[in-house]
């Protein structure tokens, strides 16, 4: 189908974009890469009166490290992040999840800010950013604030950002050198949204005990979910496959996945356990390798 009629604005600066957003009110939508918004417009699931195009604001596309923190401008394209040596070196969890994000044609145009702001419950980046305990900078014409990933994702396609606020920067804290990582998901076809997926981070002590573990799921609820019970069960353990398997069993006790066309809730729970175990084991292995 074709999008409904709207008025189009192409600001050249961030200030201009934010001023437009405050003037036009909640009936205006920002458009970044458009890889989620355009299908919604084509299906007429959304009928905004105004689109504010961010593609002309070149200063919103960057990758940099400041004081150990990775800072990603909201208009940075997926593909650029996927291929970035800086990201691969310091935040390999992000690099590992990227090939799972749709297809290369989508990643060529889609942006990190767009994906995160869209907050699809089955998307990869919200779970990865939740595991990384990233922070998001939200700007409006009146104020700037920083929100944690945990507070940002509120529900299905719903975030803590007000309509006139724009996510302008993603800040990912540095991880200890020997942190192990893994992302994996199961989908019906390559590039489809995940039935279930998980991002894991594990830091081992030099003695081989788990100092901390983080596990975040995608596709298993309205928002990315940290598996706190699993994380707690692993803390201080010398991990064996049995210990990880048992901890992964806990991971889904707080989740309430839904049944849909693609998979039943029970099936989703089953594969979540498997993916939790696999990602945790791989992250442990990588932390161990880094310590040697």
């Amino acid at each position: 189908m074709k999008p409904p009629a709207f008025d189009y604005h192409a600001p050249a600066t961030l200030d201009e974009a934010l001023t437009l957003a405050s003037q036009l009110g909640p009936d205006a939508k920002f458009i970044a890469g458009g890889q989620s918004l355009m299908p919604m417009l084509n299906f007429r699931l959304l009928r905004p009166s105004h689109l504010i195009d961010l593609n002309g604001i070149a200063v919103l596309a960057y990758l940099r490290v400041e004081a150990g923190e990775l800072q990603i401008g909201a208009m940075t394209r997926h593909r650029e992040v996927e291929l970035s040596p800086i990201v691969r070196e310091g935040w390999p969890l992000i690099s590992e999840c990227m090939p799972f994000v749709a297809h290369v044609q989508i990643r060529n145009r889609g942006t990190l800010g767009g994906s995160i702001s869209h907050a699809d419950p089955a998307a990869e980046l919200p779970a990865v950013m939740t595991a990384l305990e990233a922070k998001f900078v939200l700007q409006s014409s009146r104020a700037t604030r920083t929100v944690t990933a945990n507070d940002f994702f509120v529900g299905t396609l719903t975030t803590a950002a007000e309509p006139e606020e724009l996510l302008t920067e993603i800040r990912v804290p540095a991880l200890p050198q020997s942190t192990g990582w893994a992302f994996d998901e199961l989908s019906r076809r390559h590039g489809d949204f995940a039935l279930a997926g998980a991002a894991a981070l594990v830091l081992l002590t030099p003695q081989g005990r788990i100092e901390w573990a983080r596990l975040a799921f995608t596709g298993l609820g309205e928002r990315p979910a940290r598996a706190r019970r699993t994380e707690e069960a692993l803390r201080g353990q010398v991990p064996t496959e049995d210990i990880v398997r048992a901890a992964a069993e806990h991971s889904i006790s707080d989740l309430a996945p839904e049944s849909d066309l693609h998979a039943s809730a029970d099936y989703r729970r089953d594969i979540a356990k498997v993916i939790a175990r696999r990602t945790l084991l791989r992250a442990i292995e990588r932390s161990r390798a880094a310590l040697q």
Partner: protein
Amino acid sequence: MNKRKVRLEINGIQYEGEAEPRRLLSDFIREDLGLHGTHVGCEHGVCGACTIQWDGKAVRSCLALAVQANGARLRTVEGLAPNQDDLHPIQQAFTEMHALQCGFCTPGILMTAQALLRDNPQPSEAEIRDGLSGNLCRCTGYQNIVKAVLLAAEKLAQK
């Protein structure tokens, strides 16, 4: 809504047209500029038939607005063949390997494959399958398409 002027370069040629803000780039290319090589399938970014290159990158033209392409440099399937009589090596490989039946998906696959081979001139079969995973073909299956891209890589290496 008021129409806006859209000036852009496609396959090295300057074009100018007018488009409502809601005009999809795919429709603008086909209907307004008359370049019918780019096909339109699902219009929600799933099938890949409308894939074109924007600054050399394969993208879905159904997921962009014509007004966004003002000033852009695009390449469509019409820009592949060097002249009226000869095919591009990738097109030649598709013919030789019978990599199409109805041909509806072919323009999108060619534009994806060209960008893939430019960035990775000697791809493995797995890399080709991954690279083409965003393009659906509903008649041939993918065996011959993958073979054709492998053959195209050979042809391009010999050039």
